């Protein structure tokens, strides 16, 4: 399977026998992946600070199990899923305070891009997620399926439905 992070899989042997190597490899992984994963999660959830907090939480858990997680083809996928679950849990708790609204994307960007992202925000979260993982993080469908523990067919259908809905939404926007 391709490794979207571009980093080489880590050697289990090295991790077990050279703890300092493990620490440095985790730190390298963290520096390469943290903002990237947080960016993906932020685009999916619409909340940058929650995304960063969630990815940090995922990174803590990855650190605790780095001897195992570090050997995965795509440890970023593992961290992403842990972070997403953690963030969703947080959002669910917020729902009782803020009626579950996903926070606005409070960033400055070109109008066309803002329009596209507004359409993206209107998609159901599962569809939005696979779009972000594919088009922002550049993961393969196999990577996405493994990271989210869903079938490849589900990834395909979610992508297909998402693109279809985006086009319909944006077409309507153009007409107005």
């Amino acid at each position, binding site marked *: 399977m391709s490794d979207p992070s571009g980093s080489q899989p880590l050697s289990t042997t090295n991790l077990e026998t050279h703890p300092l190597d493990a620490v440095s490899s985790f730190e390298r992984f963290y520096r390469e992946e943290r903002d990237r994963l947080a960016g993906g999660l932020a685009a999916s959830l619409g909340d940058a600070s929650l995304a960063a907090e969630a990815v940090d939480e995922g990174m803590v858990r990855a650190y605790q199990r780095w001897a195992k997680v570090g050997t995965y083809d795509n440890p970023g996928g593992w961290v992403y899923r842990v972070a997403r679950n953690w963030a969703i849990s947080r959002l669910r708790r917020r729902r009782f305070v803020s009626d579950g609204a996903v926070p606005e994307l409070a960033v400055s960007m070109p109008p066309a891009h803002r329009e596209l992202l507004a359409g993206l925000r209107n998609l159901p979260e599962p569809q939005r997620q696979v779009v972000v993982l594919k088009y922002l993080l550049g993961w393969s469908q196999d990577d996405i399926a493994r990271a989210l523990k869903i079938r490849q067919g589900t990834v395909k*259908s979610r992508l297909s439905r998402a693109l279809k809905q985006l086009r319909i939404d944006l077409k309507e926007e153009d007409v107005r």
Partner: protein
Amino acid sequence: MTSEEELTAALHSFRDTVEFPAGDPARLAKRGRRRQRAKSATITGGLAVGLVVVGIGVALNRTDGTTVIAAASSVPITTMAELDDRENPGLASTVVGERSAAPLSETTTLNALDMRQLVADQVVAGDLCNSGDGGDPSDVTIEQVQVLASPQGVTIANVTCAPGAYQPTSVALFVVDEESEGLLPVPVDWFDGEQISSETFLYGLVDLNEDADQLSLSVYVRYRGAGDCGMAMTHLWDPDENSGFVLETAHGVIECPDEISPTTATDWPQLYPPVVDPSNDAPTGADGWTNLAVSPACDAEGLARRADDVRSNPKVMACIESTLLANVDASQFWIEDVIDDGKTTLVVWRAAKFDGDFGLGTPWGHEEIHVTELTTWTDKLVRRLDWEDPVEADWMYAYRIEFVDSTTLQTMIGWHQGECYWVDRLDLDGNLVDDPGNPYPRPATLDELSADESLCVFGIDDEATILADRFRSPEALSSL
């Protein structure tokens, strides 16, 4: 028009403009080590030994090799005070009710232990409870944790929380995520009388049950003290997704009659699935139309027969969906278009039962296009598309279906995972209708195409053109 490149650029633009707080791996590593120390201290502190002893003490051995810990569900096994002196001593937890019908193997016991440990870990993180409407999370206490290891290999923790005065007790279910070794909330279908939503916090009496064949859940909630209204639901674990409980039945009284009622949940009428008499299904006629069995409630109200209601009224949708899927194992179901020319007729797309796993981790099945006439509740299969292989060109997918008129359908079919399309017109028997003006005909070489070839009649960016040229506008569709 939305191209994949534009989407990619927009997402990167978003990411480039977002600033995240600076990360600090050393600080995170410290957090990780602190948690690891706490976990190790607990595991080696005698908890495991204590549990195993208690478990064996009350076990009843079955002749089939399984073991039931009969009385343990109501007997506190141990307190976990040693876990509560860590990061958040205010969240005192008591773990009770360990029971298992699975073989009492070391693995099962340790799974349960791991689950308890994970619960304890996340008690500290405050992740497991709903603090209620505006409640303070620090007021929340975990009242009870029940761990159930099912014969199907699913280990579930049932966490009951008390969120403080004047807040209803919430219950949440969690499974161990093997990969992350963390707890994942279990979604449960919640039926409100009209629609099913997926919830992770439940209210009322929630009971997990297991037998040799399945893992089930019952939820019983009275809407108010008078007891004159409420809902009783039963659920089954979804063995395909292996990640949640799917609604099996719901009995209830939605509108509170405002009088104390002697009725119990067993007297409440069945609301889900709508009561349908399958014997009403007539054999398929010569023209391919089949009579559908419809629930008396839907039929009597004529709910589903008003075209203007089809897409907007949840009750109508529930009637249509429950009727059309009453005897069908369909995994996805979409109403694509509605036409009303004196009779209300739907065209429906559904992915029918998957027949097996052909590799690549994905089972393949087939999809069907149906028309359903609501005035007479009759249904007809128009076309069936088989998904033979996901990497071959004949893996096709109907992306847009609509009525041209009451006897002709127009379909946009995609292949190559949605990168190419063609347009067909069909009569209601599935036969191709001559359409000489169609600029997007079915490619003659389709049967020879493979995923390795990039040959497409037109690409994904042309979809909007196709929609505009050949199909009614999205506005027209959404106004239906």
